[in-house]
Structure formats: structure tokens, C-alpha cells
């Protein structure tokens, strides 16, 4: 069974942060390491070269014998309102002291009251006498989970004291914004922070965060959409552009997610207030905030309340004119120029990033009020980040058809080294289609000529394709596919003249489900530059080869009879209805062939059932390929949100085990489940030549900033041109492999070399990236499970 234990004190913890959410973002209570005997003593690896690192973690110190005293507060007669409860309690500041944290029922104090039970008497404004009973319930040591949560709340208080603005979970400094007028964007510099128990110390992990805000209201955006798309497509365009975005309002300090647009209502419509009376939005905003709504024809935005009060799940109506947009839309993310302009401000190189962080710590040290608050609680922070050592593990050798290559570790890329070398397995293109529009006739020919130049050295045999000219309409493409695609076709190549999604979606849908054949879509624009055409053609040839079932290169995998699984999820944010889990599993010893399945499910459904079926199918295929069942299985699980670890450990892992059991009573392979997390707050900096640099690929960190209750480690596997490299966090939540941590780390790093769409090292193990690609394709374009006929190929690249 899985060793899950929620540390005592957490279940009944109800000290609430603003917003009253009780989600445990840091997976505090999940202790998985204690069930893995072989890593009790040590979970560190040993191979590689030592590297001096520093990070963005700062030690939190408390005075000796520090403890936090937790009291339960109750009122007689019972008082409902939280504010009243606080007001009544704090009439007794001489007894409880000036320093306190109170959420309405639980009171935290830095000192112990004289008696275990203290009775206090207050009187309300109505002259009602109230007896308040304050009872000591807990004396918490600095490392208790409750204390950790408490530190986080106190730290947020400090940020507020520094006049930083809370937006979502983080705090930002509004007084010194960077404005990017070309795109009407504003960037606020801020900080993410979390205080956790790390390997040896409680530390603050702080990082620079940027908030992109937009200098326009939702109504402005609607107006410009209207002028762009016209009346007919206006509502659709609004829904597409706006739903899912986070807005700020003019009148309060809250953020809302736009979940729907209500076109049947407008500011003149009435709503029911909590006291039961009806009022129009116009009246309400005038009365409550003195705000005049100028446009009375605008629709109303609907935001679902995530938090459930009682059992009622309410929604909030918002007026577009009073809402400002935050963040980027998908459309904006695809805008190369915009992202480039943004990157200048948001991608900070290591030195600058640490400098900005230093500024925050400086504010904290300098601000009197903040220092006073910290002193009163008996806490303080180091103002220098922790330093420690990591290891740079050896680079991998790349094997391709008998040849062996080393890559330059600085670039983590072997495009040049493997150019002109035959592939491990090349698929012939005897019969294939090339579809293009009249305008792109030249481009199509250029592509063809270039492919003829690059494919022979790869060992790909290619015949002339059937060249088909179509009108630039979705239906035209589809008609050609229906007429010309037959089962002896190896691959279909479509040249598209714009990145409009509908055409791409229709092609992919047809060729993934209706008539399963590998397909390759190419944007005409990418082929239009003569200086890059050979590079582009090479990439396309490699990609097509993989889609048809080819293999490119391999690295040495010392483990035998091993199946590697990758899982990632895609959540459809626009319609919010579907989630897709991509599942891939290796099929051969060299881990160059992959089986894939995916699970499409509606909201609220658990993932695990579908994954069980996938694993069964994967094992069937593995045994078909290898004439036996794998004796080791490694699952790399990506797409796990903050606070979901518990679910994974409690439900998903048992399902894997169940599934393995169901194969046969005598079958008990060694199973390792590793949770992969790309979005982590930790950053590492190499101290090189007196300055700070990004650590080189292959840097492994498994001390100091890891968590004592987990078998976890960080790997920096990729390189970045600008900004700071983000390490990937690996958390081994289940492991019967008996492998040394060093070997698990090495295997993980090896797998980061195996993603065929990139001749270099990537940020996650290849199976995760494949699973991501698959889930993304299905979630974005196909919306149902692709044909099983394609399942042994990388058609989703």
C-alpha cells in the first residue's frame, strides 16, 4: 500500500488566507518517502562533476525555543460575523497582546497566555454582553505544517505592508510599471513567495514574477473586436477572445475569471441583492461606488464563484466597462512581435533576477513596520540566499546507425553533428500527396526540391508525390482528402497559406480519425525564405519520418526489459468542458518506438479509469513486440497541478498496481512513478567567475532545496538563450525498482535526449513531451480519440 499520511494538525487547520480557500498548494501533508525503504537513509546521487550553486531560497530563522500557540475562540451567545468576532476579541488587547493572527475562530499568538482557558467579556454596540472563551489547543513547533501555513500568511501580510498589490496569488509593485504602448500592455514587477520546510531548513522561496496587465477595459476590447469581425461573428469572437480571461474590477481588489457572456442582459437589468431587493446594475454602481456606467447596451459578464458557500455555487455578474483585462490571450501569445517586446522586460538573466530579488529582501529589511511585525512574531529572514553544490552529470552519447556522437554541452544540441548521417530507421515515401493552393505552387515546388536534396543522406527513399492544387477553403482540402487518400499512401503533406486553425483542425481530424494516415501541415510562410529552406526541409523530413514510424537516434539505456510511460493532460480552457490525458509507452529496448493512447473525458470525471485501460493496452503491445512482459515500468507523470499530489498518490498509483495485478497473478514488475513538474519556483544559478550564470544542462540538485518527506530531485536539462533556465522537479512517489537514486536521475536525464522533434535536450523526459503533444493535438483539434491504427507511430508530432 501507499504510504500516505496527512500530518496531524493539518486536517483541522482552518486559518484562512484572503479568499478563504483551503487548498493545499504545496502538497504539505503528503509524505511519500517514508514508504520507500531504500531511500530512507539517502536519496542523493553521486555521479558527475561538482558545481557550486546558489538559489532563490532564503533561510527563515526563529528565536530558540520558539513556538506558536494555537487557541480556539468561542462566543456565547454565538456571534456570526467574522468582523464582529474580531472586534469583540480585540477589545482585550491588553490580555492577548498586540501581535496576533485570527480568522474568526482560530487565534495564533507568539506568546502563551497565563491560563489554558481564558474567559473575556465584551459588549456589542447593541449593548449585548458576550462571553469569549479562549482555549489553548496546540503548542506548535516551528516545523509543524500549521506553522508553515502560518508563515506564509504572515509573509503575505508583510508584502501588503510594503504596499504591494495582490493579484491572484502573487504580489506586485504598481508604482513602477513598464509600459509597452505598442501593444497596450503594462508589466508589473512582483514576487511569488512560499515558505516551506526544505531538506534542512525552513526557507522562503521567492521569485520575480511579472504580471501583464492591459490598459483597456473589456468593453474597449469588445469595441475593437466588433470593428474587426463585424456584427455577424461578433458574439463568437467575443466568446473566443474573452472567456477564460482574468479581469480586475474598477471598484474592488478582486480578480474574476470570465466564464460566460450574458447577451440577454445589460447594465439596466436588475439583480437580486442579498437582502432580497431588486436593483439595476446602473443604480447599484452609482449608489455603491459612485460610478456612472456610460454604455447601457453592453452585455454582462458572468463569473462562476469557485468557492462554495454552504452548498450554493453562485455566479457573479460583471460589467465589461468596469473590468480591466489581465494576462495574455492565446492570440497574443502567438504574436511574435508582442512576445519579443515582452520578453525584453520579463526574461531576466540570472544576475538581474537575483538583483531584483535582493531588492525585495532589502525592502523587507528596511521597512520599520515589517521588521516590527517580524520581531513581534520572533521571526527573521537571512538576506543572503543559500549556497550549496549540485552535480553536472556526464553528457550522453548519441547513437545513429552505428555512428556515435558527442554534443557540445553548452548548446545541448546535436543538429550539426548528425547532419547527413543515415537514420536508425527510415521510412520510405513511395506514395505520398502534396496539397497546396495556387498561390503556393512555387513554395510547394521549393519544398519538394529541398526534400529531394536532404532525404537521400538520411536514408529515406522518396518518390515524386501526387501534386494536388486546391482552392484555399477548408471544404476544398477535405474534398481532395476524401477523393485521393487511399490506404497505400505513406503520408499527406498540406501547405497552408495561413495559420488559421479551422483548416488545420479539419485536416487533422479527418486524417487522425476518419481515414488514419500520417499527415504533415506546413505553413507557406515558413518555406518562403531561401536562406532557411534547407534547415526547414531537413526538420520536416525528420518529422515526417517519425510520423510514419521511423526512428532517428538513440542513447544508451542500460536497463533491460523496461517500459517507459509518459502521461500529460490538456485542459480545454476555452469551453472548459473537456480534459484530455495523453498516454505514451515505449515499445522497444532502445526506447525509440512509442505506443500511444489518449483519454477524452468531460469535466469532473476522474482520469484514472481511462489511464488503467491505456496501461493495459500498452502492456499488450509491449508483449507483442518483445514476446514477454516488461519487468520494469517507469511512469513519468506530468500535468499534476499544485495540491493534486494527494489524489495521485491515493487514487492513481493504486490503479496502476491494480492494473498490473489484473495481468496475471505471477506478474509483478517493478514499478516507479515519478511526478514531473515544469512550473516550479526554484531557480539555480552557477557561480562562475564571480558572476551568476545559468547552470549547464545535466545539473542535478538533490539536497538543501528538496523536501525531506519526498524522494525528489531537480534536473536542469535544457539551455535557454535569454533569461533564467527553469529546473524541472521530479518527485518519485512510488518506487519498487530498487534502483539507486543516481540511476533514476541518470535515466531521467537520458530520456530528455529522446524527443525526436528537437535534436537536442529538452526540459522534460521525451515521453512527457510526446504525451503533451498528443493531448494538445486531440484537445485543440480533434476532440476525440484518434484511430488505434496510428497508435504505434508518432503521428502527433
Amino acid at each position, binding site marked *: 500500500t501507499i504510504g500516505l499520511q496527512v500530518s496531524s494538525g493539518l486536517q483541522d487547520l482552518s486559518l484562512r488566507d484572503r479568499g478563504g480557500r483551503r487548498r493545499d498548494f504545496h502538497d504539505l501533508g503528503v509524505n511519500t518517502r517514508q514508504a520507500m525503504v531504500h531511500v530512507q537513509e539517502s536519496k542523493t546521487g553521486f555521479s558527475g562533476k561538482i558545481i557550486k550553486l546558489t538559489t532563490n531560497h532564503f533561510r527563515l530563522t526563529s528565536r530558540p525555543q520558539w513556538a506558536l500557540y494555537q487557541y480556539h475562540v468561542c462566543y456565547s451567545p454565538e456571534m456570526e460575523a467574522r468582523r464582529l468576532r*474580531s472586534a469583540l476579541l*480585540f477589545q482585550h*488587547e491588553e490580555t492577548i497582546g*498586540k501581535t496576533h493572527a485570527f480568522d474568526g475562530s482560530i487565534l495564533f499568538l507568539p506568546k502563551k497566555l497565563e491560563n489554558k482557558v481564558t474567559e473575556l467579556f465584551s*459588549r456589542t*454596540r*447593541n*449593548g*449585548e454582553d458576550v462571553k469569549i472563551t479562549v482555549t489553548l489547543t496546540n503548542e506548535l513547533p516551528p516545523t509543524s505544517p500549521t506553522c508553515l501555513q502560518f508563515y506564509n500568511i504572515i509573509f503575505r501580510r508583510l508584502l*501588503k505592508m510594503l*504596499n504591494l*498589490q495582490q*493579484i491572484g496569488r502573487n504580489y*506586485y509593485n*504598481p*508604482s513602477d*510599471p513598464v*509600459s509597452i*504602448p*505598442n501593444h*497596450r500592455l*503594462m508589466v*508589473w514587477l512582483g514576487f511569488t513567495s512560499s515558505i516551506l520546510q526544505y531538506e534542512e531548513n525552513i526557507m522562503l522561496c521567492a521569485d520575480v514574477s511579472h504580471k501583464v*496587465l*492591459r*490598459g483597456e*477595459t473589456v468593453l474597449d476590447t469588445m469595441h475593437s473586436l466588433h*470593428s474587426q469581425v463585424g456584427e455577424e461573428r461578433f458574439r463568437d469572437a467575443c466568446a473566443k477572445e474573452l472567456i477564460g480571461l482574468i479581469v*480586475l*474590477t*474598477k*471598484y*474592488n*481588489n478582486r480578480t474574476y475569471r470570465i466564464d460566460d457572456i450574458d447577451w440577454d442582459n445589460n447594465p439596466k437589468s436588475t439583480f437580486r441583492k442579498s437582502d432580497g431587493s431588486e436593483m439595476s446594475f446602473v443604480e447599484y454602481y452609482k449608489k455603491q*461606488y*459612485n*460610478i456612472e456606467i456610460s454604455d447601457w447596451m453592453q452585455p454582462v459578464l458572468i463569473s462562476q464563484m469557485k468557492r462554495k458557500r454552504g452548498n450554493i455555487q453562485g455566479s457573479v455578474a460583471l460589467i465589461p466597462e468596469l473590468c*480591466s483585462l489581465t494576462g495574455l490571450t492565446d492570440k497574443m501569445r502567438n504574436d*511574435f*512581435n508582442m512576445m*519579443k517586446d515582452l520578453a525584453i522586460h520579463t526574461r531576466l538573466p540570472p544576475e538581474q533576477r537575483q538583483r531584483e530579488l535582493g531588492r525585495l529582501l532589502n525592502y523587507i529589511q528596511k521597512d520599520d513596520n515589517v521588521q516590527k511585525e517580524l520581531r513581534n512574531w520572533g521571526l527573521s529572514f537571512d538576506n543572503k540566499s543559500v549556497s550549496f553544490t549540485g552535480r553536472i552529470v556526464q553528457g550522453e552519447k548519441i547513437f545513429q546507425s552505428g555512428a556515435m556522437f558527442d554534443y557540445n554541452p553548452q548548446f545541448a544540441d546535436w543538429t550539426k553533428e548528425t547532419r547527413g548521417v543515415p537514420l536508425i530507421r527510415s521510412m520510405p515515401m513511395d506514395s505520398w500527396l502534396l496539397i497546396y493552393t495556387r498561390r503556393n505552387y512555387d513554395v510547394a515546388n521549393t519544398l519538394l526540391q529541398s526534400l529531394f536534396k536532404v532525404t537521400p543522406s538520411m536514408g529515406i527513399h522518396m518518390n515524386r508525390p501526387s501534386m494536388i492544387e486546391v482552392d484555399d477553403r477548408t471544404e476544398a482540402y477535405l474534398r481532395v482528402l476524401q477523393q485521393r487518400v487511399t490506404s497505400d499512401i505513406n503520408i499527406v503533406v498540406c501547405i497552408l497559406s495561413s495559420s488559421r486553425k479551422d483548416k488545420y483542425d479539419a485536416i487533422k481530424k479527418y486524417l487522425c480519425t476518419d481515414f488514419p494516415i500520417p499527415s504533415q501541415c506546413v505553413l507557406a*510562410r515558413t518555406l518562403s525564405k531561401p536562406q532557411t529552406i534547407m534547415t526547414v526541409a531537413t526538420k520536416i523530413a525528420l518529422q515526417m519520418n517519425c510520423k510514419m514510424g521511423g526512428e532517428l537516434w538513440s542513447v544508451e539505456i542500460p536497463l533491460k526489459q523496461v517500459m517507459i510511460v509518459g502521461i500529460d493532460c490538456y485542459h480545454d480552457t476555452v469551453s472548459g468542458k473537456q480534459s484530455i490525458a495523453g498516454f505514451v509507452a515505449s515499445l522497444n529496448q532502445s526506447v525509440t518506438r512509442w505506443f500511444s493512447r489518449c483519454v477524452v473525458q468531460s469535466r469532473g470525471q476522474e482520469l484514472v479509469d481511462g489511464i488503467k485501460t491505456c496501461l493495459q493496452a500498452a502492456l499488450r503491445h509491449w508483449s507483442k513486440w518483445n514476446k514477454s512482459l516488461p519487468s520494469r515500468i517507469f511512469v513519468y507523470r506530468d500535468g499534476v497541478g499544485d495540491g493534486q499530489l494527494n489524489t495521485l498518490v491515493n487514487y492513481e498509483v493504486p490503479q496502476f498496481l491494480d492494473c498490473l495485478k489484473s495481468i496475471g497473478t505471477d506478474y509483478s514488475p517493478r514499478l516507479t512513478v515519478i511526478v514531473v513538474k515544469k512550473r516550479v519556483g526554484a531557480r539555480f544559478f552557477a557561480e562562475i567567475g564571480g558572476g551568476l550564470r545559468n547552470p549547464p544542462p545535466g545539473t542535478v540538485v538533490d539536497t538543501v532545496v528538496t523536501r525531506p518527506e519526498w524522494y525528489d530531485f531537480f534536473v536542469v536539462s535544457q539551455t535557454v538563450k535569454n533569461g533564467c533556465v527553469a529546473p524541472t522537479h521530479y518527485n518519485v512517489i512510488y518506487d519498487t525498482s530498487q534502483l539507486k537514486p543516481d540511476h533514476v536521475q541518470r535515466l531521467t536525464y537520458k530520456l530528455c535526449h529522446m524527443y525526436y522533434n528537437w535534436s537536442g535536450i529538452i526540459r522534460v523526459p521525451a515521453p512527457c513531451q510526446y504525451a503533451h503533444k498528443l493531448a494538445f493535438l486531440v484537445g485543440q483539434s480533434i476532440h476525440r480519440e484518434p484511430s488505434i491504427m496510428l497508435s504505434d507511430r508518432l503521428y502527433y508530432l
Partner: protein
Amino acid sequence: MDKNFKEEFRQIIKFEPPLYKQRHQFVKDLVEKYKPKKVADLGCADCSLLWMLKFCSCIEVLAGLDICANVMREKMHTLSPLPVDYLQPSERSLTVTLHHGSVAHKDPCMLGFDLVTCIELIEHLEESELKKFPEVVFGFMAPSIVVISTPNSEFNCLLPRVTLYRHPDHKFEWSQAEFQSWALETARCYNYSVEFTGVGHPPTGMEKVGFCTQIGVFFRKYPQTGESLQSEKPMEAVYKTVFKAVYPSLKDEKYLQNAVISEVIFTAQIIKHRLMSKYEEYSDNPERKSKFQLSMDCFSDYLGKLVVEKNMEPFVSGNEVYIPLRTIFSFPKVNRLCGTFEKLCKLIAGKVTLSSDGSAVMFNIEHENEEN
């Protein structure tokens, strides 16, 4: 009054909206009517009245004073500017300050206010403080209007739970006659006129007890004597500032400049975008490619510009697009922000890429095409 009679009123005396809201609404109505620029709330407690007043667009200076710093601190962050206030700075300027101190002491930071409110304040004052209060508020601060509200003790018999006073901290509660005589005497002494009113109507048949909360509104009878009087008595600050928030405003050059630059570039982008899509249509015709001009008419209604003058047309030359500043200035939003063309030029100087003679915003388009 006998017990049964009281019981009967227990049900009836429930104010809707609650009394504190009625008091706040009363102040708000007064602000709407007299449009004071500087308002101070004495005994501001949890700042709820100040929070309500910050939305009143006539007010440029808001100050709060309380004897208890902690009660102010509890909610003072609600008085901070919101993210949106930074994103769309308002036309008016607004500064909100909270002071910790006593109404029995004079501090120069309280000078020059138009309206001073003392809502449910005086009944919390010790006798010695109450004695000094008129001199501080009416003599020293001397605003044009003072609002004072206090419980009417005659009403207490209708409030079932009230035994002596409505709140344990009350030092006294006055009858209508007591309050009015104090107010009239104070007004006479400091040359103010006073009007009495209140909120919280008594139930029918009980009209003679008067409002639950009695209010006196004092108007200064003499005109502001100006700075001269105040500067004669330089004095030390005795209040401690616990909070200060300066709202972003277009009156502040920094925010105005940002807003203007943003609007200018955005407007220029729209014009360029329109121009380029037209330009691409024409670009098959090589004769017209070198120098291309577009009549403004085709997009003037969409952009809602004010005037079309000669030599205001944007044009493409080589790899550059030029959008004349005059054209940009004619757009209502830019126009309203800057006021004059000279101001526009001054604000964007050095911040926006202009043509060599400085008359037009210049974009390089070659660069852009490369990226796509």
C-alpha cells in the same frame, strides 16, 4: 414606559438600511450637494466612511483621524489605490491620509478643509476633551462645514437592550435639548450657523422622541480668512501619520505622459494598420508603390476624428510609415488628454520615434515583415 410597550417596539425598531449606513448616506448626500474638495473624518475608526467617500469624484483630499491606530490599521488597506487605478489613472487627484491623534489637540495637517465630519464621535470624549473640541474643530480647523452626529438619549427607551448608554465606551448621551444647546452655543461662539436634523425616524406616535441619531450641520458664516491667519501661528505636528496613499492621476505629469505615449502609439498603430492593408492591395501596381497616400475618409468615421486638414495624410516612404502628429492629435482621446498640440509634442519628445522634422510618428515596416 411599561414592559409590554417596550416589547412591542423591539420588533419595530429595526432600521432599514441600518442606521450607520443612513449616517454615511447623509454625509454622502451632503458631499454631493456642496462638492467639498477636502474632507476630514474625525474618529474615522475602521475607515468605512472614508472608503465610501473616496468614490466621490469631487474630493481631492481625504483625511482620517482616530485616537486608536490599530482600529484604523485593520482596514486601512481598503483605502489604497486599486490596480485599475494605476492602469487607468483618473483625471482627478486624490490623496488619502490617516492620522493617529486626538481631537483635543491641534495639528496643522488639519487646516484648510472644506468639510469636517464627526460621526458618532463626541459621545466618546472625556469631559476635558469635549471642552477642547470646539476650539480645535471650529476655532482652529475652521472648515466651511462641520457635521456632528451623536445618539439622542430620548430615543433609548425604544431600544430594548440599552440600559444606560448604547455603547460601553460612551461617556454621555444627550437629549435633543442638551445637544442643541451645546451646538448653538458652539456655533455662536465660533461664528457658525447650525441646522438640526437626524437619521432613524421614531415610530408613529412616538415622534416627540426625535431621530435615533441627532445631527447638527454647521456652516461657517465668515469667508475663509486664507493662509495669512494660519501662517501666523506656525506650530508643531502632534499627530502621527499612519497611512498615506497618493492616487495615480493624470494631473501628475508622469502618469499623463505614460497615458499620452500609450494613446499616441496605439492610435498611430491603428492608422498604420489601416494604411498597410490598403497598401498591400495597391502594392501589385509598381507605379504606386514608391509613394502611396491614402485618403483619410475611409477610416475617419471608425476612428471618430475631429477634423481633416490638408497635409495630415499618413504615407509610406521606402520602409517607413509616417503618421503625422496633427492627425494623431485630432483623435478625441489624444486631444482630450493633451489639450494643446504643443503639449502633445512636449510630452512625447524623446519617447516616441518621430520623423526628422518631428512632425510625424515613424514606424519601420521592413523589420516587421522579416519577423513574420
